[in-house]
């Protein structure tokens, strides 16, 4: 590499300067340097992300026996198998329900909190830290604390309900209440990051817009809906996509709060089914097919999200 660079350098010096070609050479040198510097991350991406992704797609069309170590072509058999499985189909529905309730609700709450925390109030940093804390706390630890709160006999929720004469449900063991309980925990945990992104976006909104609105006599809600929300559109797109991907990949809190898919599979979600198929049933190929379906869902939702909320170019 060094000798090539030297050769190029000597050759350049011996000729009369010709700016366009020199620019091209300079560009080639820069490209080489860029490739060199990018190489570690590219190798990392190919090895740790690219190959597993390709393998997942490949194995989804095979019958791979992980214990015996045999691989046979299976065509679409794995896809037929998973879509004939009621529990997998149920897990897709649960994932959609979970996403539907966690993403918009958490986003709405996060916007309101971000607006409130964008005011000049006392102990602002403490409030911001408090709302962000659930995001940086280990999900398993959070889930364990909530598990105690949901405990039917001695837990906080039923204790409070008992004071007003209500026999609370067995939150995590009742198929009607298990999913709402998991959604509640997930909304609470997800607000922090969304709030932070919205807060950053709010601080980029030019203040003179609000001053102009004040001069026009606009009310608070009017300013919020006419200025704040439209200018938060790029942030909303980002939060929406990231939250949706997160929601479709939910695993930790569901797994800890309601092990084994919850009562009568009432909280089983796609990621848990992938895990169960791979490591409970040792059916790696079917698990790969399920992963491909999950990927397809995320791809479609991301495209729809872009159409609905705007393109990358709009945001800066």
């Amino acid at each position: 590499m060094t000798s090539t660079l030297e050769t190029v350098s000597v050759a350049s010096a011996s000729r009369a300067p010709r700016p366009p070609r020199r620019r091209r050479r300079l560009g080639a040198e820069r490209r080489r340097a860029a490739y060199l510097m990018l190489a570690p991350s590219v190798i990392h991406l190919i090895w740790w992300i690219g190959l597993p992704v390709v393998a997942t797609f490949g194995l989804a069309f095979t019958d791979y026996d992980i214990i015996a170590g045999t691989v046979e072509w299976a065509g679409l058999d794995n896809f037929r198998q998973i879509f004939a499985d009621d529990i997998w189909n149920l897990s897709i529905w649960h994932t959609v329900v979970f996403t539907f309730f966690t993403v918009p609700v958490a986003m709405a709450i996060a916007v309101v909190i971000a607006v409130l925390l964008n005011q000049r109030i006392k102990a602002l940093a403490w409030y911001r830290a408090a709302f962000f804390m659930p995001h940086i706390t280990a999900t398993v630890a959070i889930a364990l604390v909530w598990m105690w709160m949901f405990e039917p006999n001695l837990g906080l929720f039923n204790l409070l309900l008992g004071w007003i004469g209500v026999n609370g449900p067995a939150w995590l063991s009742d198929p009607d209440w298990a999913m709402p309980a998991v959604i509640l925990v997930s909304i609470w945990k997800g607000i922090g990051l969304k709030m932070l992104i919205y807060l950053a976006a709010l601080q980029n909104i030019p203040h003179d817009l609000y001053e102009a609105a004040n001069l026009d006599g606009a009310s608070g809600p009017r300013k919020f809906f006419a200025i704040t929300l439209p200018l938060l559109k790029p942030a909303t797109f980002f939060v929406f996509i990231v939250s949706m991907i997160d929601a479709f990949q939910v695993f930790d809190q569901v797994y800890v709060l309601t092990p084994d898919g919850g009562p009568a599979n009432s909280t089983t979600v796609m990621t848990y089914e992938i895990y169960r198929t791979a490591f409970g049933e040792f059916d790696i190929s079917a698990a790969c097919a399920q992963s491909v379906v999950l990927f397809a869902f995320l791809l479609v939702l991301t495209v729809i999200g872009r159409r609905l909320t705007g393109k990358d170019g709009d945001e800066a």
Partner: protein
Amino acid sequence: MTRTRGSRTRAVTMVLVAALLATACGGPAGTTEGDDQASGTIRLLTPIFEGADGKTVLEEQLDAFKEEYPDITVEVDYTSYGKLNEKLTTSIAGGRPYDVMLMGVGWIPPFAAKGALAELDENQQELAERYNERVVEPGIYQGKVYGLPIMLDTRFGLYRKDIFAEAGIAAPPSNFAELREIGRQLTVRDARGKLTRAGVDILSNDLRQTFLPLMWANGGELWTSDGQPAFNSPEAVGALQLMADIILTDKSEDFGFTQPGATGLPLAQGRAAMMVGHNNHLLAIEEQAPELIEEDKIGFFMISNERPAMFQGGTLATVSAKSQRPAAAKALVSFLTDEQASLAANEQRGNVPALNSLSDSDYVQRNPAAQFAMANLDAAYSEGGVPAWLEIRGDFKAAIESVLLGQKDPQQALDELVAKAQAAIAKG
């Protein structure tokens, strides 16, 4: 342009092939020539020496092993039963399986059938002298010994003698009718109807492992003689109906009354009068309410109806068929299953020793649950038995729950379960 497209196609094809090869490079678990010398470094995967205490116990035993076999070094990977499958599959797929793997009763047929386990050089007649026949069976697949038992996890009935005495009940239930009757009698609810004491707790134990001993006690079997699922037989349906009756008809326990992981054991707290439980629940009671053991307030009973039955799980030591050091691995298996090491393992988990000779040990004499289990091993039954068991067993919980929630009747739930099991067996 054409050339570039061709290069890209070739590159993509190469990546695809490389990825598939990289993923599937574990290869079949064939036999290895290995060495005949008990030496070298071997890897052990264990799900039974959990936490700092478990690690200390195993390290003490491995120090003793090192004295006996100075040329063998053991590298240990500690895990739990919850993570065991991940460790096993990824190690096999990665082409570097553990030399010695400790695994549960239901794991032997699936792994042995696919050639992942090495046959152990054990004489079955000698084994019959060292162990109860029921204890040896789960380690045998198609007449060959693949696993030696270290410890047993048994499930049977536990009851509070003090609560029974207060109600004037002289003995624990000896059949299903008595179980229901006593359960109803000992159930307590407050003025608002909230359950404060379950007459019989069938939810604190794993649901499958509660259902199976009930099924066996009712005369049912997991498999027919030709290896087909039999857990939708009238006996099995009767056992599941009993569970449904306890929850839905007698209301001796409410679904969700116990929440494993969040609260202690209801029996220890006086929130249950009896339960289908695990032998090591005695250890939990010792921690939560030691006075119950000191004052002899905990009793045990076999689950009985057509016959007495006890669920017998356990941990067995196996050797990988791909081990490069089979002699060293087998030496470690022999060591871990001998009296000293297995006694230490059982003591730290509150489990039941597999070796007959340990029935007189101080540990067993001090542990009434272990004593009870060892005295009743002739009525012990094990799950597993077919290579597809690990795929089948995961479906039991949801099927049982659907009955306990009144969503399905027992026959329907078990018929659907059997259909899934047949599909799993057919898939191979």
